[in-house]
C-alpha cells in the first residue's frame, strides 16, 4: 500500500502539496512545528495512490513516498 511521510520540521506550511494532491488527502495541522509553521499532514492515508505529486511539488523536500509494490507509475521521473 502506498503512502507518504512528511517530515514536519522540514515543512514550512506553504500548502502547495495540499493543492497538488489529486486525492485531496493532505491538509494542514493545527499545531506548529519548531520553526512556527502549521505543517502539512495526511488526513486520509489509506486513499494515497503513491503518485508522488505531493513530493514533486514540495519545495522543501519534506515528503517521502513509499510504494508497497502494487502501484502504477504516472510518469517517469
Amino acid at each position: 500500500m502506498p503512502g507518504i511521510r512528511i517530515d514536519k520540521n522540514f515543512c514550512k506550511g506553504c500548502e502547495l502539496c495540499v493543492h497538488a494532491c489529486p486525492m485531496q488527502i493532505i491538509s494542514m495541522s493545527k499545531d506548529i512545528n519548531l520553526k512556527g509553521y502549521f505543517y502539512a499532514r495526511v488526513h486520509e492515508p489509506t486513499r494515497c495512490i503513491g503518485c508522488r505529486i505531493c513530493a514533486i511539488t514540495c519545495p522543501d523536500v519534506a515528503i517521502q513516498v513509499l510504494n508497497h509494490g502494487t502501484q502504477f507509475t504516472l510518469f517517469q521521473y
Partner: protein
Amino acid sequence: MANEANMIFARPESLRETITHYCPGCTHGIIHRLVAESLDELGLRERTVGVAPVGCSVLMYNYFNCDFLEAPHGRAPALATGFKRCRPDMIVFTYQGDGDLASIGMGEIIHAANRGEKFTTIFVNNAIYGMTGGQMAPTTMPEQKTTTTPAGRDVSLAGYPIRIAELLATLRTPAFVARTAVHNPMRVVQAKQIIKKAFRLQKEDRCFSLVEVLSTCPTNWGMSPADSIEWLKETMQPYYPLGIYKDPEKEKA
C-alpha cells in the same frame, strides 16, 4: 519503519538533510532538488563544483553535498569559466537569479555562452530581486509593483522584461538553451528532464548549457504560495514561453 527499498521518492544524495532558509512556498527549493537529482542520476556529485550567486540562493552551498564556490554578484559565469578551464575533467554549474544573471551579470553570461564554456547554468527567473527585499529586476513584468517601482514597472522608463533564453539562443556558438517552469507537477517533471539533459551534455563534453526556470517569490510578490503559482502561470508564462531554444542535438540532425 517502512522498508526503505520501497521508497519511490526521497531526498537525493546530492542534497544535504538541512532545512533551508527559503520562504514557505519559494520554488528555489524545487529547483535545488531537480539539480541534485540530476547530479545523482548522472553520477556526477563527486566531481561537481557548484558556483553560488549572490541572491536568495547564496547559501545553497550549505544545502548541496558537493564542492562549492561562492561568487560575487553576477560573476558566477566568470568563476565557472576560470575553474572549468583549469579542470575540464570536472562538472561545473552556476545557479543564478535574474538580478544576478540578467542585470549585473549580463556581460559575463553572454560571453561565457558565446565562448562555449562547457558548464551548466541554472537561471532562476522570479521576476524580482528576492534577497534585497523586492526591487525591480530586468525580468520584472510590465506594471508589476516592486519596492523600486511602487506604481508598477513603467516600460517607458525601464523598458520591457529581458528574455534571457531568447537572447542567448541568437548566439552562433553551439549551446543548449531552454526555458522551463516549476509551477505544477507536470512542469516540474519536464524541468527535471531538461535540467538533466543540460548536465548530460556537459558530462559528454558537448557545450555550454543554460536552463531558465520560471520561479516564484511569494514574499516579495506579496502573495500566498498558491497565488504565486497562479500569477506565474497567468502573467509570466505568456511573456516567457517555455521551450527549448537551442539544442546541439537538433542542430546536428
